């Protein structure tokens, strides 16, 4: 049996600060006919507060399932995970997801979508409006506040999706290939936007992607997944200084290294 990977990066953690997320021996099986199909096997890692981790792997390796488990949408079959030291079973605003597809409420305007999560909380109308304006400005969508989701582009929709969860001030941000459906140029814009927001708010981010370039551009650390069953193969720190230029030699060098690791 392979030794369990236990990688805890302390780079961004202050002394005495507990990790934002610990995942320990997590497994998931789906019933398939009369047998059980293992989708995730023995996943263990932990994320320091404010760390940006990319989960990289081919489709079908269970990355999305892992994200759904941490979000609380799907129960896990074995193992545990803690968010800031507490087990979390139900979905909640401390772990927000940006989905790959458009998951905005189609009958609400951009501003109303961003306000949606705030409305249930005990807050004044004025305070909510101020928060919404602030985040509209952060994602540069003030001019589109009264548009409906179907009237704006895919990139703008993902900006709204980002703003509507950032406004809730989540501890952990879970992103499931959020820019996968965008064109290359928009994707790069969104990556820059995400990095600048991350530098402002210092959320812990788990970012699922199958795009190696995207993982290198964004991540502090890359967790590489195998499939059938989904297993954590290795973890790689990304030592490149930010901002990372895709054209630079160090980037290419790291890219080739990562490709070799994935091929193994």
């Amino acid at each position: 049996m392979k030794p369990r990977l236990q990688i805890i990066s302390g780079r961004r953690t202050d002394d005495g600060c507990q990790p934002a997320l610990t995942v320990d021996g997590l497994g998931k099986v789906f019933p398939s006919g009369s047998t059980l199909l293992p989708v995730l096997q023995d996943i263990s890692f932990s994320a320091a507060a404010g760390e940006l981790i990319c989960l990289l792997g081919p489709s079908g390796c269970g990355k999305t399932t892992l994200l759904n488990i941490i979000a609380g949408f799907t129960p896990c079959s074995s193992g545990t995970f803690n968010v800031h030291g507490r087990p979390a079973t139900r979905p909640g605003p401390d772990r927000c997801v940006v989905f790959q597809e458009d998951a905005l409420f189609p009958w609400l305007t951009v501003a109303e979508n961003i306000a949606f999560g705030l409305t249930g909380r005990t807050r004044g109308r004025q305070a909510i409006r101020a928060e919404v304006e602030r985040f509209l400005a952060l994602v540069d969508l003030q001019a589109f506040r009264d548009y409906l989701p179907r009237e704006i582009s895919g990139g703008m929709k993902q900006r709204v999706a980002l703003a509507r969860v950032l406004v809730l001030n989540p501890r952990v941000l879970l992103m499931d290939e959020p820019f996968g459906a965008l064109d290359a140029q928009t994707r790069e814009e969104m990556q820059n936007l995400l990095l600048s927001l991350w530098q402002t708010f210092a959320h812990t981010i788990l970012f699922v992607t199958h795009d190696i370039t995207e993982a290198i551009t964004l991540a502090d650390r890359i967790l590489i997944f195998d499939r059938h069953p989904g297993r954590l193969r290795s973890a790689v720190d990304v030592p490149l200084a930010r901002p990372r230029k895709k054209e630079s030699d160090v980037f290419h060098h790291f890219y080739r290294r990562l490709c070799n690791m994935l091929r193994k």
Partner: protein
Amino acid sequence: MFSDHHSARLLPWIIPAGALLAWIFVSTSGLAPPYLLPHPVSVLKAAQVYIFGTADAGPYAGRFLDDARASLLRVALGFGLAALLGIPLGILSGRLPAVRKLLSTPVNALRAVPGICWLPLALVWFGIGINTTVFLVALAAFFPVYLNAAAGARQINPLLYQSGAMMGVGRLRGVFAILIPGAMPQIITGLRLGLGIAWAYLVLGELTGVPDGLGAVIMDARMLGRIDIIAVGIIIIAAFGRLSDLGLKAGLRLCFKSARRIP
């Protein structure tokens, strides 16, 4: 030439105007004798007497207001009942497999029974009068309202629920902030179909010897051979059906953001 704007405003009237012209042509040229198809002018005269006439001016003079009031009340009560039962039950069965399994056999069996079969039973149960009509209207309008609400609730994108859950939305708010707005397009379709059927069954219910109502007038006119009054009744029901559909849409748009913003 017409601009796009003008032709768009004309478009809804082309078929009614064409039908009217064809009617005038057929009647004036004598292709159809007046006892089969009365001339539009005589129908117009009959309508004028029916709507504006004083009670002593003839058999149907001045009855319009009373008939319309009686029929509208029956449609409103029957349709209201259908909506009140159909929407909540539909949404429940769309979301809860247990409710769906519980209801699908009886609903789909009863749905197959033609409405007219209920008429004799309804007469025995409720007697002649408003109750029978309201029962028939409610029964017939229930099915499209229920089935569409169920379909609407079932096909809501699960990501919307997950979004709600992660944003801390509770069960109750989830129903009113996600479920109902998400199912709104189908709910509206169901209500509009139901309202159309409500008018059909109104006439069926009023065939049975009630003294007032638009359906009663049509039946009565048939016995007396007043085909012009039959035509008047049909045109008035068509107009009421169209107006009530527009009213329903406008009302829903007024009350629900999600109804206003359907593409």
